[in-house]
């Protein structure tokens, strides 16, 4: 699984961090997403897909 994010569009509210804390974090300075692991193992797939679906800016792409 390969993840891409568009940080410029990120609204910084951290829904991704709530859903998949092992993969996404929030920047302490501006709240925007930090991708902890761009290629996480399959055990994270459902959480990552959930995060992508719930991301209010639709900036998480899962490949």
């Amino acid at each position, binding site marked *: 699984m390969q993840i891409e994010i568009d940080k410029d569009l990120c*609204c910084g509210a951290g829904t991704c961090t709530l859903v998949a804390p092992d993969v996404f974090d929030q920047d302490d300075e501006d709240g925007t997403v930090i991708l902890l692991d761009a290629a996480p193992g399959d055990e994270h797939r459902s959480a990552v897909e959930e995060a992508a679906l719930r991301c*209010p800016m639709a900036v998480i792409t899962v490949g």
Partner: protein
Amino acid sequence: MTQSRESDHPLTTRPFPTARPSGCPFDPPAPFAEARQECPVSPLRYPDGHIGHLITGLRSARAVLGDTRFSSLPPGKRSPVKVPGSELSTDVLPPGMFVNMDPPEHTRYRRLLSKHFTIRRVRELRPRIQEMTDRLLDEMEGKGGPVDLVEAFAKPLPTLVTSELLGLPEENRAQFGHHVDVLFSLSSSGEEMQESMTLLGGMLHALIAAARKDQGPDILGRLTVETDLTDEELLGITFVLLIAGLETTTNMLGLGTYALLRHPEQLAALRADWSLMDGAVEELLRYLSVVQIGPIRVAAEDFEFEGRPIRKGEVVTVSLPAANRDPLGFDDPDAFDIRRGATRHLAFGSGPHQCMGHHLARLELSIGYESLLRRFPGLELAVPAEEIGLREMMVTYGVLGLPVRW
């Protein structure tokens, strides 16, 4: 500016419905479901005769809120119903009121503020919120039932939390709570509102001046040190935090407790297994969707949206209660089920304006409900359900009061 005429639309043109069905105070007004069945984007008549659009489908709501061609800027924006306080809003945009801005101006404020609402920062607040909650419950217990849960708990908890975040001194909190109360109350006159607005403005000005001097650890103290925001901008930001964070959380606490008391089998399941609490909070957010009028946007250009022509200047109102009961998004959407895993709801909106305080709100709600229910194992209504008044004509839905005993 072009305005669409009714004859352009083959669909029913409706006014925005506010009356809740008599059987269930938690269900959205019935015309929303009819509108959604016709089309998730349907014509809506505003009080001044303007014909805009009503969004009732989950997918369409998410799409509108994420599409900046639907602008948040005030010119032409209007409420689909006349609600108390709506006459206070104007077409001029005060500095710092970023709820009414579009990117990139809006983005600048979010980037400066978000650090105070990250999941990490919010989790650090847990022990303090628990302490404040326990103190309120001690007072309630000391007084003995029946008490109005709204006055004793649902209102003061978010007010205390917000006061602390903003660095409001203890001795000013009662006065602060009073003014906020007047601004949000159904029964306040226009004059009373204006007066409280002025006095609250004065208090916040003093607070900002003190924050500049003390440079404390609270949000305002940090913002004065770490950003170049002006006093006027800080005032606007503080108003946004108050407007966005207090009434919403208060009504979720009050109406949420009422919903649990009216669904005893769900309440019993929760009491038997507190690990269901996070799911229960999500389901309460979805099922109750207390932000019942709006978000409201204005089309910034002519374009086609989901096959329907949208013209510049047309006002679009999203119904979150309707979207969160969309059968295409949720199985058996009108059932209240704390185990359904209802995470993809829009109770906090979506897009660039998605609630900045959602982590904080979730934490206040889970601590609030659990502490209340644990403290009072026999919690029940102290009046017949028919006597519970509802906030039908307010932006935020909820109970007017909730007399309880234990």
